[in-house]
């Protein structure tokens, strides 16, 4: 539908060509998780991936930081092919990944040690290490818990620690695999604000989410179905296809759904509103004309 608005003149930071991925390819019942994807992601992009469970979103993400290697096709990160094992370390230090379940990602017994673990292993000097840990914990609003054991934190707090741990490594690309699904609205807003800030500083963001209003954060949205990319565009473009999305077992943000249904009743009502204020403004504008109640 569209090319990324920001940075078309740049080379893609991630290039995916003819990607297929099968789990258990040798077995009787291989699972074809990715069935042909071509995708280019540009530096500074904020790409949101949506799709129902089992559509291949996480498998795609894992192919980006070499947790999985293509069954067919190629993935290049900063020009490095993920198939070549010599590239693995360089790719992983460029791509920070945050998973859905923070427990699997937390290694140390004290919060600040956990956050320091990644950068320490990258050889970040002690003075800077301290600075980075403090910055990362500040971004996710967990500074006051820095001396607590992570396993005693709530799920949302743990996820913020996991995200801080990845951020402290200052990756060029941040992949969030449903990283906010365990957070409360406040925690989610904190994390989204942090991610937004990182993106503004130039970090390329790839976010997998089920929260449709979160998808509005991105400059690009792709919709996956049966291991393929079936829709692509800006959030407004993608979400204006309410019926198609519904056929793909997806929802649209409540605001868009509301505007869409009002448009069905009154074709002059714009169907592609995305923000709460847009809907409220539109309704107010229309009631002013007729005198209101």
């Amino acid at each position, binding site marked *: 539908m569209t090319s990324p608005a920001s940075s078309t003149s740049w080379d893609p930071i991630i290039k995916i060509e003819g990607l297929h991925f099968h789990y258990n390819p040798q077995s009787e019942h291989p699972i074809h998780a990715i069935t042909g994807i071509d995708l280019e992601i540009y530096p500074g992009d904020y790409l949101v991936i949506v799709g129902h*469970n089992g559509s291949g979103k996480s498998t795609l993400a894992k192919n980006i930081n070499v947790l999985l290697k293509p069954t067919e096709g190629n993935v290049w990160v900063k020009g490095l092919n993920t198939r070549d094992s010599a590239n693995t370390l360089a790719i992983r230090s460029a791509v920070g990944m945050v998973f859905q*379940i923070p427990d699997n990602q937390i290694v140390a017994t004290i919060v600040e040690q956990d956050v320091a673990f990644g950068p320490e292993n990258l050889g970040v000097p002690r003075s800077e290490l301290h600075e980075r840990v403090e910055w990362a914990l500040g971004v996710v609003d967990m500074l006051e818990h820095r001396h607590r054991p992570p396993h005693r934190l*709530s799920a949302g707090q743990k996820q913020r620690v996991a995200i801080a741990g990845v951020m402290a490594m200052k990756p060029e690309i941040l992949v969030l695999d449903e990283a906010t699904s365990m957070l*409360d609205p406040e*925690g989610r807003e904190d994390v989204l604000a942090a991610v937004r800030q990182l993106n503004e500083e130039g970090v390329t963001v790839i976010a997998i989410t089920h929260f449709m209003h979160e998808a509005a954060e991105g400059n690009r949205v792709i919709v996956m179905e049966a291991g393929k990319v079936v829709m692509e565009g800006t959030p407004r473009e993608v979400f204006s296809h309410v019926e198609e999305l519904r056929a793909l077992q997806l929802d649209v943000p409540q605001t868009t*759904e509301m505007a869409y249904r009002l448009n069905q009743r009154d074709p002059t009502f714009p169907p592609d509103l995305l923000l709460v204020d847009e809907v*409220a403004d539109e309704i*107010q504008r229309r009631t002013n004309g007729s005198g209101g109640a």
Partner: protein
Amino acid sequence: MSEQPFIQINDLHHNYLRDTPLEVTALRGVTMEIYKGESVGIIGRTGAGKSTVVQHFNGLIRPVQPGKVVVDGQDMSDPKVDVRRVRQKIGLVFQYPEQQLFERLVGDDIAFGPKKLGMEQADRRERVKWAMEMVGLDFDAFKDRFTFSLSGGEMRKAALAGVLALRPEMLILDESTSGVDPRSRSELLERLLTLHNEHGLTLAFVSPNMEDMAGLVDRIYVMDEGRVVMSGTTREIFSQPDKLRAHGLGVPQVTEVAHGLIARGVRVRRIPVTVEEGVEEAWKILNS
């Protein structure tokens, strides 16, 4: 509703790691009641104490600290309570389904509970089939799949099926549908509501998201810092967005639109909590 609550919790306190330097206070005096056949929401930001409370419902945590927990007429502080019987009546599905799956094959995992109850093979198969249908996992496609090969959302469905297979009288979902895609989620909840409406299944939903509660629960307890800070009908709670925000919670976008209209001086008669209600209210406003 029967006269005696199914779950009755009175001034309950709970500290984790009691008498250690790492002691953390989780509950500071919680009182709540859930009657048979009700659908109740327990909502609060992370760390509010929601999970700690519901783990008292089925005896996963026993009340050894101040407070009283009575479940189905039994005082849970009594060491002679038959906890197995309580857990059969009250099913709890956790946040992390992989912690609740332990068999190699999906079908075996869901059959585990009924097997422990001594059900015959043939009945068990029917029961597993029923439970899988309820959560929207195709019996033939999934029964012989490896549990570890499931996607996150599928694992959650399998874990829920394993609990449903025991045919509990009450089901507690502790953020069990986070990570399930929106469509599967609403299908799943619709099936649970059918069980609730037609068979009187008592439901308790734990979530930090107000969206999850709309159209699903009759009453809501809002928790923060180990206390119940708000309680009332779903609509009563939704009509106080500022108070909810102060407790770290939001309201659904449709509700926000309504409050946005009020702030703009537009008269809103009824605060909508679902998209359907939002469309109806907006339509009324546009045509008044």
